């Protein structure tokens, strides 16, 4: 059997083994590869930087466990950024398959890092509501119509965080951490109809679509996939020494940690594509000669 034939008939279990090693080794032995930042993430970060203490923002958990390794770091970096700047945060989940549980866990995790933040005053968790388009349209008229109570069943109307706040139009920004179509709804419904600026944190697979919205000015910024999350974490660590110290102490910036494994898997895939094409071109040349 010639080298070309061997390449064509390589057992896919070898490929699986390389993939596993490319992911597992950097997780077990972190390399600390550098993360460069892109314009869309910087735009998102700078927009939040421009907010003042006391401003209010909306954070929507629009993803499920399947994309949590990509999306969780975005939501948590954004939440940390808001808390460190004393920006108030209203959270909700619009994704049916596990969005609520992820939000509960993520919010609890970050809130523990900021014990001075008071629930109901500095942040609130509104829980899950089905029917994202209808919910968004109701938010444009009266938030309490869509979410009469928070996740614990407490009416939101008496909460200090909602004093003087009635509609989504009064929020400085919506940050939707999204997989699927829900992120697009925030742009086409909330941004277009109520004028609230939107920042999105999509999975890497969905990110290409949102470049069109970025260029049209309908998005203030975007954190594309795990790379976007890692970039935001880096920007946060650079701007706030306390965050940098927190990262070095706890290693809880999971986007930055995940980039090592992601780089490994990209290297393996690019390598196999290269090998496959070398074999393909050699085979074509052989056929041409014959």
């Amino acid at each position, binding site marked *: 059997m010639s080298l070309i034939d061997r390449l064509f008939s390589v057992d896919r279990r070898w490929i699986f083994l390389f993939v596993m090693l490319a992911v597992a080794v950097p997780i077990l032995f972190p390399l600390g590869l550098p993360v460069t930042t892109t314009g869309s993430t910087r735009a998102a970060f700078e927009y939040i930087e421009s907010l003042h203490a006391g401003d209010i923002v909306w954070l929507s958990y629009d993803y499920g466990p399947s994309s949590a390794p990509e999306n969780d770091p975005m939501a948590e970096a954004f939440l940390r950024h808001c808390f460190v700047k004393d920006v108030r945060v209203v959270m909700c989940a619009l994704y049916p398959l*596990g969005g*609520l549980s992820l939000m509960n866990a993520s919010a609890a995790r970050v809130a523990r890092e900021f014990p001075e933040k008071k629930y109901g005053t500095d942040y609130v968790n509104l829980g899950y509501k089905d029917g994202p388009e209808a919910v968004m349209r109701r938010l444009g008229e009266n938030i309490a119509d869509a979410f009469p109570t928070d996740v614990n069943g407490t009416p939101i109307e008496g909460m200090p965080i909602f004093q003087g706040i009635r509609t989504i139009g009064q929020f400085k920004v919506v940050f939707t951490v999204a997989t699927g179509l829900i992120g697009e709804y925030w742009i086409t419904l909330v941004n277009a109809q109520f004028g609230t600026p939107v920042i999105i944190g999509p999975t890497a697979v969905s990110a290409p679509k949102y470049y069109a919205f970025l260029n049209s000015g309908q998005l203030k910024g975007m954190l594309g996939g795990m790379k976007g999350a890692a970039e935001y974490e880096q920007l946060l660590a650079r701007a706030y020494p306390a965050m940098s110290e927190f990262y070095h102490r706890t290693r809880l910036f999971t986007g930055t940690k995940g980039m090592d494994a992601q780089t490994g898997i990209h290297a393996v895939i690019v390598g196999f594509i290269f090998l496959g094409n070398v074999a393909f071109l050699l085979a074509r040349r052989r056929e041409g000669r014959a």
Partner: protein
Amino acid sequence: MTGLHFDIGRVLLLVCFGIVPLVGIILGFFAPSLRRQLPLIVAFVAGIVPILSLYIPKAFLSAPGQGMSPRLDQYLIIVAGFALPLGVVNVIQLNTRKVGRGEKGWFFSLVLLIGLFVMGSFGVYGAFSGTGIGFLPNGAPTPFQWMTDWLFQPLQSTIFSLLAFFMASAAFRAFRARNVEATILLVAGVLVMAGRVPLFDLLAYPFPPLKPAAASLTQTMGHLTEWIMDGPNSAAQAGIIIGSALGAMAMAIRVILGIERSYLGLGKGD
């Protein structure tokens, strides 16, 4: 006047979404043709009211909380809520049948049903007991949250991460420079994959003297990737988005006007 407008909107909605479906169900037993006609009226009103409310500034159409359009939004939340139990009923019917008949893969259906009932029971218990489905006041997870953290989330993540293995295998076998178009796609794909991560830094990791050159290459590749995403990709995506939006508009008009009726789920002869 406001009260009058309010009443008009309410009465119209009551007629359309209360009386018409009720009459349709009753008459449907005696006049089967009505089974097709009355849902079309409901769909027409549900579709046309939100559009009219954008262009006709009348209180009975668009007054916050009281107009027909905001009320329809509220109905949509309720209807969407009912869609979830319908899905659950469908899953139960399908899988109990499979288990009952001992069809191929019945064991997986059994596991699915056990998962559905166990997790669903904890969810229902959390809702009715007032403990919720998140965390208890002492910070401990509820049984539902515990199952999410330690079963649902790892299982979903595992299934999704299997994609990486299949993608690598498929990329090796199928991503070939067979013609000009495939070559352009291949080159763009490889550039973006290489430019989105510090690939050269990884390759230079064992060779410290090469690290500055690798960092510079990573920067260059990053800029190239951003150009591809911002330029050609963005232009193509804008075209796709506008095209699909126009398609959605055309489909909406067909549904509103009753030309498209497949959503009624009627078979031949209905």
